[in-house]
């Protein structure tokens, strides 16, 4: 019997970032083996805050840096580390909801919007929305991808 293929964590992530063939499948296979599956949010009890891909594509094309993206998204802590963006299908995410002040919790960076606006908006004016918890493995379909924003 052949031994199962072994992967180094760093290689898995590198392959995913570089979009190599089979990378999503391999990464998902490894993630699915974990006893406590990782979620898109910090835990299974937290909502997921997401941004439409086209909005981030536009910002990426302007060579925005990781710390600038953090500021624009209202993410904390404000560090100088790279940001990893995970792209996944809307079909997986399920219904999307407009965030409100209660959902935002105790974040003064949260800016509520007028009711006529369909999406929420981050402090940096980027569209945002929320959806219910999803595991990373669920979202790693063939359309999924990862991108690194450098610091």
């Amino acid at each position: 019997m052949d031994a199962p293929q072994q992967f180094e964590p760093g290689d898995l992530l590198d392959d995913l970032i570089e979009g190599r063939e089979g990378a999503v499948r391999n990464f998902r296979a490894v993630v699915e083996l974990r006893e406590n599956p990782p979620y898109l949010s910090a835990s299974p009890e937290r909502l997921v805050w997401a941004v439409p891909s086209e909005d981030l594509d536009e910002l990426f094309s302007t060579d925005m840096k990781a710390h600038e993206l953090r500021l624009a998204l209202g993410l904390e802590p404000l560090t100088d580390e790279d940001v990893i963006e995970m792209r996944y299908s809307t079909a997986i995410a399920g219904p999307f909801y407009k965030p409100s002040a209660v959902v935002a919790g105790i974040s003064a960076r949260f800016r509520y919007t007028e009711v006529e606006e369909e999406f929420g908006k981050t402090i940096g004016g980027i569209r945002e929305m929320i959806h219910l918890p999803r595991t990373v493995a669920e979202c790693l379909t063939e359309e999924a991808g990862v991108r690194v924003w450098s610091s």
Partner: protein
Amino acid sequence: MSTASYKEERRKTPERIPVWIEVVVMSLSNDTNSIIAELRDVNCDGVGLIMWNSADWLKDNLNVKIEFSSQFSSKDPISGTFREQSPSKYWPNFRSGGFCVDSGKECLQEITETCCAGESAPEDALFAFQRAWSVRSKEDRCLLKPVWYELKALGGDAAQIAHNLLTDPNCGGHRLNNLMTVMVEIRNQNSEMSAMEVLEKAFEVYRLQHSLVDTQKDRLIEYELGSVSLTSV
């Protein structure tokens, strides 16, 4: 009564009180037709309704019965005529409707009086906050009103957060109601806690106890155009 006459009469009726009360709307001619809804506002003549789904059977001029849930579940059902199921202007994935009461005016009068009793909402509170405030008891209002004013007086982030909560037009009454329930519990457990500490703790508890379930009633986004993907960072 024609729709035009109904609208004219509605303009003349006493102002409606914003409320947040869960109910079940049932057809009087067919027991199997029912839908969960919320009362949005109320006076002694009728109510405004919010529903999260369309119901083909719920037609204009249909005779319906409304049964109360949650803290008003002991009230007898009321019956009357359903009006105008239509997309709510700012909540396109919801349906709003009106209800003219035939039987049960006393019940609506009692609810209106209950919701008006006690401290009024903080002065800059808008509709969503008022909906949640209306269904708080007099004791809860006495406990919470100083908390909101203390937050506003602190200035800075505290005042901004309080302002957002009081005036956010996207906040559902259900979320604010649950948040205030948690705030009352925390304040009762520790009367020495500062307003900011109460709010911080309340958000933490609210997130665990209510946030995911409350999302089901939030305003949906019709994200169908443009990219097929969205991104989490």
